[in-house]
């Protein structure tokens, strides 16, 4: 088995920790892998739930991504474990999106569930909270209505902070296509929210 530490010794303590955990997981240490899961499950769920509007499907997708990561531990070739997990999650999310086209579901059902509201601070103004909630609901619905590719590109760029080249690498399309998806997606969002833009203009 390839010794990751022999080839890559990152300066970043987070990456070094991840690599050590991954190597232990490759040697059969399930606890080490579960440590990675605990470290990244929130972030990966946040990524996937924006790409896959249905929360249950997003949850299944994240679980499947961790299964896939565990199954393919030997295919990790160094670099950032976080990026590797992100890539697996993005692929799983895109697979789920393709499957979702065959079985459409209600998008973002949690937004219609009054029991779930975006987190608010203690000192939050009720009016402000209601406005935030309305803005989130409107934007989430609009996001669910643009194409899957556009939504994935926007989430990866605007929310996750990846650059064009990284997104192109993750999604397997050209850099120009990534740019086009982001820009067309934004225009589509604006078109869908044209009547409600006052929510976003402050």
């Amino acid at each position, binding site marked *: 088995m390839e010794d990751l530490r022999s080839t890559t010794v990152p300066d970043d303590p987070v990456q070094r920790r991840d690599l050590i955990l991954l190597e232990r997981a490759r040697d059969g240490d399930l606890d080490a892998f579960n440590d990675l899961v605990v470290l990244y499950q929130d972030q990966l*769920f946040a990524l996937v739930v924006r790409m896959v509007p249905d929360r249950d499907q997003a949850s299944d997708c994240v679980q499947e991504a961790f299964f896939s990561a*565990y199954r393919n531990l030997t295919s990790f070739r160094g670099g950032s474990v976080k990026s590797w997990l992100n890539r697996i999650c993005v692929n799983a999310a895109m697979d789920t999106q393709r499957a979702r086209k065959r079985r459409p579901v209600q998008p973002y059902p949690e937004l219609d569930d009054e029991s779930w509201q975006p987190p608010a601070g203690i000192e939050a103004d009720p009016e402000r909270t209601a406005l935030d909630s309305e803005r989130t609901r409107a934007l989430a619905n609009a996001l669910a209505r643009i194409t899957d590719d556009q939504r994935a590109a926007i989430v990866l760029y605007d929310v996750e902070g990846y650059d064009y080249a990284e997104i192109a690498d993750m999604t397997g399309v050209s850099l120009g296509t990534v740019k086009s998806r982001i820009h067309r997606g934004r225009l589509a969002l604006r078109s869908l929210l044209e009547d409600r833009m006052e929510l976003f203009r402050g």
Partner: protein
Amino acid sequence: MVDGSDRHEHHDPLLIAALLDVDTSPSERAAAEMLIQSCTDCAALHADLVALSSATHALPAVPRPRDFRLTAADAARLDATTVGEPSAPTPRLTREMTATNTASAHATHDTMLVASLADHSLAASERAAAETLIGTCGLCAALHLDLVALTAATRAMPTPPRPRSYTLTPDDAIRLRPAGWRRWVAAFGTSRDALSRPLAVGLTSLGLAGLLVATVPSALFQGGATAGAPARPGAAAAASQPARDVTVAAPEAVSGAPVVGAAAPSGAYVDNAASPAAVPVATDPNALAGGQPDRASLAPVQGVIGGGSSKGSDAGSGKTNDVAPGGELALLSSTSSIPTLVLVSSALLIVGLGLFLIRWAARRFGDG
């Protein structure tokens, strides 16, 4: 290090400061390092600059007191003040004046260019064009502001709480990374295994086709020729005998069954794949032992008829055809090629079905 304080005033402090930049040329870097090594004041200056740089990087971010985004009213106001061109009936159509605030003019503007401006990825020339659009067209400016606002809102979208933990159980681990034979079997069920399924389908199809080719035509023929009288297995013994013996053995081998039904070792098929027809033997009571002339009339002799002749042609194998004493030919089937085809087909079928079985086991016991 030499204390060169008296000469320090002649040293270039900018060269020392440039040492902190990553793009300082090697020659400048070497000169600065030489100064630092030779002059204590330069060394102290360098140390101070490094400390200041670190402290600057570590400065805490001051919270933004308010939102600086422009409202649509701001955009309209700025647009009115900066684009003070006369609204003549025939406005000048210079490069600067191609954009106006009318919706019809806006429809000709490149909204993708405006959208690109939001993520700061444009080349200088494109950026200038986009900024010109925004500066001269109120609708483009409003679009740009909306897109910036939407981008910010997308970033600020709250995430629903994670519904459960995704840690793996030991059972998951065993299922996902099987050991021993399960690992070998699981390899067949993975998504990367693009070979086993088409191979299984192909081998199974070939096996079935081979068996059909070997069995069905003779079965049809047998059924038609004997009016439903199956060949008895006991007739197989007679098949190994010369034709003359076969005809002798026929009475015990068959009872109203075709003579050549006994030619096949299994008694279940005969070689008629190459035979265009079954030729009824001209009845010769002497040729049929046991004095059963009417059986001879019932028993067609099936065999390879070379060139379509019924006159003792050998069809190449020369194994089993024979000439009846009466000068008429009784062609018996060749048995050598039949088992080969059947054996090969059976083997292909078994291997194909085995692959299907392994794939099923991979999905059942693995996690393919």
